[in-house]
């Protein structure tokens, strides 16, 4: 691997040929998505993958690297999305509003994560999981009740700056068969932000700070004995993960130009994040990338596949009901349980292990 690339990846390469190839595919696919997969739906899928990569990677910092289970991650995701949505609704569709919304959301998330962390991270993992679950559900209720500010259950439709609107055309003629419009520019904005945020997270987990987090995950007692204040590190990890999730939420809001409780706050998204982290590979960062791609693709296209299966077995009473496209989460749940049992290190961990067995990569 060459020097600059190594530095970009913070000296933490894929460490497996198969993973490297997959990542390269994902990178090229996402970088050239508007050209390779034209069409509104596929571009939306690509943007959702980008947002999820950041969101899941930030959760991996918490779950995979620090060993903390939090159920409040979608709350921070939602704060980011609501920050941008509310600022753009109240102030108007300017870049300044986007900035203010993002900054305000980051501040709120950071404070909230700090308070939750200091309050409940002193005790055991299970305790933290329960408290975050309670706080997140209360926040969800609050968001739908403050309907003057958040638009309640309907959510907020808002306008983004001129350049990012679909009606905006940079050039008269299409370039390489793709018209350079506001969607195109927004996509690349999201892409660049996601890439930078992901590399920043990679840098973070490979810093001395990240090593301490991993030490705490492996043995908190020993880390404390060596002289690290585990509570400080855990809280810092919680705050950082919350900030990255907030940024991901802001990206989602900019892309959708809409935000509501179901798009960013719902508990289903929390479950999705858990599924992706575990299936992709906890504590690997690259697992977030591969997991997100697989999950979002499955979410959007597996249902079509299940519809075929459901139609084929429609006459069989039980199987037909189980194979209906609405039950796709059932199969993901089964996949989730199986992967916790049999592939605790996820796809990336598995590929790395098999690469090692086969010989030096």
């Amino acid at each position: 691997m060459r020097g600059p690339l190594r530095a970009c990846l913070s000296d933490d390469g894929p460490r497996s040929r198969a993973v490297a190839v997959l990542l390269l595919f994902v990178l090229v696919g996402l970088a050239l998505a508007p050209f390779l997969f034209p069409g509104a739906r596929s571009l939306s899928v690509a943007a959702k993958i980008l947002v999820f990569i950041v969101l899941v990677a930030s959760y991996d910092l918490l779950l995979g690297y620090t060993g903390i289970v939090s159920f409040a991650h979608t709350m921070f995701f939602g704060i980011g999305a609501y920050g941008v949505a509310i600022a753009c609704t109240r102030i108007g569709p300017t870049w300044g509003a986007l900035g203010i919304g993002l900054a305000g959301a980051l501040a709120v998330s950071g404070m909230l994560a700090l308070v939750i962390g200091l309050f409940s991270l002193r005790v055991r993992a299970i305790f933290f999981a329960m408290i975050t679950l309670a706080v997140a559900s209360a926040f969800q209720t609050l968001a739908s009740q403050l309907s003057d500010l958040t638009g309640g259950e309907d959510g907020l439709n808002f306008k983004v700056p001129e350049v990012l609107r679909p009606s905006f055309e940079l050039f008269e003629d299409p370039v390489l068969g793709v018209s350079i419009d506001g969607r195109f520019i927004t996509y690349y904005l999201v892409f660049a932000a996601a890439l930078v945020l992901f590399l920043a997270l990679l840098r973070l987990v490979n810093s001395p700070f990240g090593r301490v987090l991993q030490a705490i995950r492996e043995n908190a007692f020993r880390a404390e004995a060596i002289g690290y204040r585990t509570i400080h590190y855990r809280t810092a990890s919680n705050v950082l993960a919350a900030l990255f999730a907030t940024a991901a939420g802001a990206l989602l809001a900019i892309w959708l130009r809409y935000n509501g409780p179901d798009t960013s706050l719902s508990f289903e998204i929390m479950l999705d994040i858990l599924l992706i982290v575990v299936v992709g590979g906890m504590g690997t960062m690259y697992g977030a990338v591969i997991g997100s791609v697989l999950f979002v693709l499955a979410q959007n296209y597996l249902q079509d596949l299940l519809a075929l299966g459901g139609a084929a077995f429609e006459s069989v009473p039980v199987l037909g009901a189980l194979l209906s496209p609405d039950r796709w989460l059932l199969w993901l749940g089964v996949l989730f349980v199986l992967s916790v049992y049999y592939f605790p290190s996820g796809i990336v961990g598995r590929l790395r292990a098999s690469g090692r067995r086969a010989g030096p990569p």
Partner: protein
Amino acid sequence: MSFPSPQPQPQPQPSPSSASPRAPASAAGRVDAAIKAARFDPIPLLLVPALIVVVAPLIGSVPTWVTLTVAGLAIGVTIFVIASGLTLVFGLMDVLNFGHGVFIAFGAYMALSVFGPLAAWTQADAIGPNLAAIGLAMAVAMIAVALIGWAFERVIVRPVYGQHLKQILITMGGMIIGEELIKAIWGPQLAALPLPQALRGAWIIGDAAIERYRVLAIVLGLVVFGALSWLLTRTKVGLLIRAGVQDREMVECLGYRIRRLFVGVFVAGSALAGLGGVMWALYQQGVVPQIGAQVNVLLFIVIIIGGLGSTLGCFVGALLVGLMMNYTGFLLPKLALFSNILLMVAVLLWRPQGLYPVARR
């Protein structure tokens, strides 16, 4: 399984007995007093009547206050019935079952299925057939959910003992699967579960309306609490369970099979969750597949408030939460869910281990 390292026998204190022969006796007296004090601590229990009395002037009207209090107690004992199994399972085996909510849902849907063919009994305007229908529904729900709980323990929980992270993930996965199965069997929409004819309506005492079903729920909850207290304090099995909660390894060393005990508690706890699910659904007069996820949050708040592993604490916590829900729902509707979080924060600031802390934790 790690055994506690053998402790050296405590050396007899170089006693000043020659100087004052009565000293050991008074020390023993102090220990006795301490044990007595530790055995029962009435202050948390007094919180319940205190809360009821304190809010009375805030509410203003006596009939409203009576109605709200009865409703709060009814919902409180229902939550207790559900949560008691969860807290014992946690206390005994250090297993926090995030999938507990799915047992509630299964119980409620079992009642739905039983009520279907028994329409003649439930619609008769006589208390006998009505109670028979409810009793049958509860019995079926308890047996069915006990079996489900047994399978859940076998398949989902058993392989991940002692690994908190995996426990949280895997039981969460179990809950997704259970919820999806319910949707596949009974359909994803809200199902109405009307109360039997004779239990509808309210008794009017003075100006206060007391709904009949709520009285039945309170009686039922108190019976369950009484039976559970009797079982835990007056029987050999209860003695072993309490001993296991205090110190699992010591009970094992004495030659009891804690695993078998644990499976028993898990199954019984599941059955209670099923019973609680029927009570909850009848209280709401309807059931949705997501009921488990909704109630889970309340359950966690209750068992944290009560002190993880403590049955009495769970009872007090459940009553407090139930009352708070109804009072704030009337006084400050927007704060209804936050009130429980605030209650939890207040309790934890006062007693960080919960109202009735269990030893060893």
